[in-house]
C-alpha cells in the first residue's frame, strides 16, 4: 500500500500512519517542520513501514501543490490512498479584527484542501482503486459565534468532499470525510478537556479503518453523529442565542 499523508506532523495523522506502518505500507509524508518529519520517519520505519519518504513544505503555499503531488506520485510509484490532515484552529478574535488573517486561515483550512484534493483525485482517477480521506470537523456543520472562521473552512471541505465522492465513485475510488469531535492534541491545548474529549490514538485508528473500508462520512467518536443531528435541527433563531 502506498500512502500519501499531508500534514503528517498532525497528532491524529501520526496515529493513522502508525496503523499503516504496521501493515508494511510505503509512506510519503508532507509537513512543514523538517526535524519533526525526520523523527516521524524513524518512528514509522521502526513500526514496520516498508519505506518512508518525507518532504517539508508549507501547504498554505498553493502554487507549490502541483510539483508536490507529482513528486509524491513519482516517489511512491502511484498513490493508493491519501490522507489530508493539516490544519490550524486559528484565533477567532484575531480573524475578526483582520480580514487578511481570516483569509490566511481559510487558505490553510479550506483552499489548500480544495487544491490538493483536486490534484490527488486527478491522479487517482485512472487507477480505478484507492481512497482519499480528509479530516474535516464537526465544527463544519454549523457556524458558531465562537469559531465560525474555522467552521466555515471545514464546512467548505465537507461540501467539496461530498461532491468529489460522487465524482470518484464512478471510478471505484472512495472519498472519506472524517468529522472528529474534540480530540486531545496540541491544536486543542487551549480548550478545556471534558468527558467527550477523545484520544488521538482512537481517532487515528478509526480513520485507518474508514479508509480501508472506503466509508463515506465518519463521525469519531461515533456519538458525535447523533449529537450533530440534534444540533443541526436547532432553529437558527434559537441557535444564534446560544453560547456555543
Amino acid at each position, binding site marked *: *500500500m502506498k500512502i500519501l499523508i499531508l500534514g503528517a506532523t498532525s497528532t491524529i495523522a501520526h496515529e493513522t500512519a502508525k496503523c499503516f506502518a504496521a501493515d*508494511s505500507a510505503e509512506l510519503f509524508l508532507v509537513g512543514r517542520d523538517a526535524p519533526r518529519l525526520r523523527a516521524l520517519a524513524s518512528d514509522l520505519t521502526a513500526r514496520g513501514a516498508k519505506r518512508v519518504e518525507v518532504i517539508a513544505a508549507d501547504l498554505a503555499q498553493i502554487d507549490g501543490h502541483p510539483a508536490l503531488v507529482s513528486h509524491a506520485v513519482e516517489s511512491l510509484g502511484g498513490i493508493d490512498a491519501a490522507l489530508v490532515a493539516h490544519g490550524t484552529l486559528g484565533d477567532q478574535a484575531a480573524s475578526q479584527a483582520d480580514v487578511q488573517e481570516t483569509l490566511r486561515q481559510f487558505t490553510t483550512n479550506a483552499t489548500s484542501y480544495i487544491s490538493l484534493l483536486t490534484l490527488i483525485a486527478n491522479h487517482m482517477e485512472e487507477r480505478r*482503486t484507492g481512497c482519499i480521506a480528509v479530516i474535516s470537523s464537526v465544527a463544519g456543520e454549523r457556524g458558531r459565534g465562537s469559531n465560525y472562521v474555522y467552521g466555515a473552512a471545514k464546512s467548505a471541505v465537507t461540501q467539496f468532499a461530498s461532491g468529489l465522492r460522487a465524482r470518484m465513485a464512478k471510478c*471505484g475510488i472512495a472519498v472519506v470525510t472524517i468529522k472528529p469531535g474534540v480530540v486531545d492534541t496540541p491544536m486543542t491545548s487551549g480548550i478545556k478537556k471534558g468527558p467527550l474529549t477523545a484520544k488521538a490514538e482512537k481517532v487515528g485508528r478509526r480513520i485507518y479503518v474508514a479508509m*480501508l473500508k472506503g466509508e463515506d462520512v465518519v463521525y469519531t467518536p461515533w456519538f458525535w453523529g447523533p449529537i450533530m443531528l440534534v444540533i443541526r435541527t436547532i432553529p437558527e433563531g434559537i441557535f444564534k442565542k446560544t453560547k456555543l
Partner: protein
Amino acid sequence: MVTEVRSAGGTGSEGGVRAPNIEAPESRHESWGRFPRVNHAGVIRLTSLADLPDLGTIEGDILPFGYGRSYGDSCLNDGGVLLDATGLNRLIEFDDELGVLRCEAGVMLADILKVIMPRGWFLPTTPGTKYVSVGGAIANDVHGKNHHVAGTFGANVTRFELLRSDGSRLVCSPSENAEMFSATIGGLGLTGLILWADFRLRAISGPYIQMEQIPFGSLDEFFDVSADSDKHYEYTMSWVDCLAVGHHLGRGLFMRGNHSWQCAIPGKDWRPKERFTVPFSLPSFALNNLTVRAFNAVNYRSQYLMTKRGTVPYDGFFYPLDVVSHWNRIYCSDGFLQYQCVVPFVADRSAIKDLFSTISSSGQGSFLAVLKTFGNRQSPGLLSFPRPGVTLALDFAHRGERTLELLNRLDEIVVAAGGAVYPAKDARMSGDVFRHSFPRWEEFLQYRDVRFSSSFWRRVTDAAA
C-alpha cells in the same frame, strides 16, 4: 542450479533413472467433461525429480497428466500410459524481491496462491479454476480474465526443463533451446514431460478485487463496454444470456476489476471457503444447475439491473465454480461438452453474432456463455490458442448427434472467420478444424516427442495422412 542434467540408463539409486512402475488408473484419471471415457493401459506416478522413470522402456504411447481439468480428450491417452505429474508438487525457489517462482510442474495453482498471496504476489494470470497444475497451464498455454494485459500463462514463463523419452533433459527458455521452448508452450503435453518451470508473478497490495458489473443489452454494447474497460481494468469478462433472441440477442453482464489497494479490510474475510463436494453423478434433470448457480451468483436480473460496484475477496471473483468441487458430476453420467472458440476482431462482428444466433435458435447449450476479448500480447507458443479477437465459451449436455451437429456448425462459422477452437475444451473437433485453427501444426511436428501422444492428437492428426 537446482537440478543437474543426467542421462538415461542409470540405476534406481538417488539421482538415477529407474525402470517405471506401472500402476492401474484411478477414477481421477478422467477428463473434466467425463467424455470421452477411455481405457488407459496404466499410470506412472512421478514422485520426485530425483527419481524419474526411464521413459524409453515404456510400451505404448505416453502422455503427461495433471489434475484432469481439461474437458475433452487432450489429457487422455486411450490404450496408452499416463505420466501422473501431480506428485511433482514441490516449490523450489521463491524470489519475493523480484517476484519469480520456480516450482515442480505438478504444483497446483491453489497451492502457489497460499504461499505467494500473503507475501504480496499474485499469479501472472489464472484460468477459471485454481485446481490446475503449472505443467497443465503451460501445456495448454492457459489464459485468464487479464489476457488483454498479461497475455497467456506461457507468456509469463521464463524457463523450464523438459524430460524427453530418449532420456535427455533440456533446459528451455527464449535463449536456450528456444524452438523447444515455443513448441512446449501450448504443446499439449506432446513435446515431453515438463519437470519444473520459472515464471513471473504480479505484485499486489492485498487479497481483494475492486469490481464492477455492468449490464449490456446487445453484442454491440458488449464491444463498446469492452473497448473502454480493457483500458482501465486488468480483469474483464462477461456472461451472456444465450436464451435471449431478437433484439435482446447477446445481452448480458460485463464484469471488470482491478486488484484493490488494501492489504486487509477489517471485518472482510478473504480466505477461500471450505469446499462442498458433489459425491456422485446426478441424474440429467440436475443439468444446468451449476450455470443457474453462476447466474444467481452474478445476480442477473435482465434489464432491471444496474451497475454494481464492490470490493470482493479474490477467490470468489476468479474462481466462482471452485466452491463446489467436482461440480462436473452435476452433469449426467453421459458427460458434457464444452466449446470454446476465438474469432478475430472484424468491423462487422458478424461471426460472433452468427455463433449466438445459431446457439440460441438451436435451443441447446447452457443458457449462459462467457465472452471475453483477447489482447495483442503474443505468446511464444507455436500452438497457442489465444490470439487477438473475441473468445466465446459455453457448455452443452451431450445429447448425441444433435449436439455434435450443432458444434460442427459452430466450427464452420469459426473457421470461415479465420478463428480457432480450443483443444483444452474439445472432445470432437475434426482434424480439418484443428489444422485451420493452428496453421503452424506442421512446424510443431519436428518438436513433438515421438513416444508422446494423446487421444486428442490421434483424433486430429490420423485423418491427415
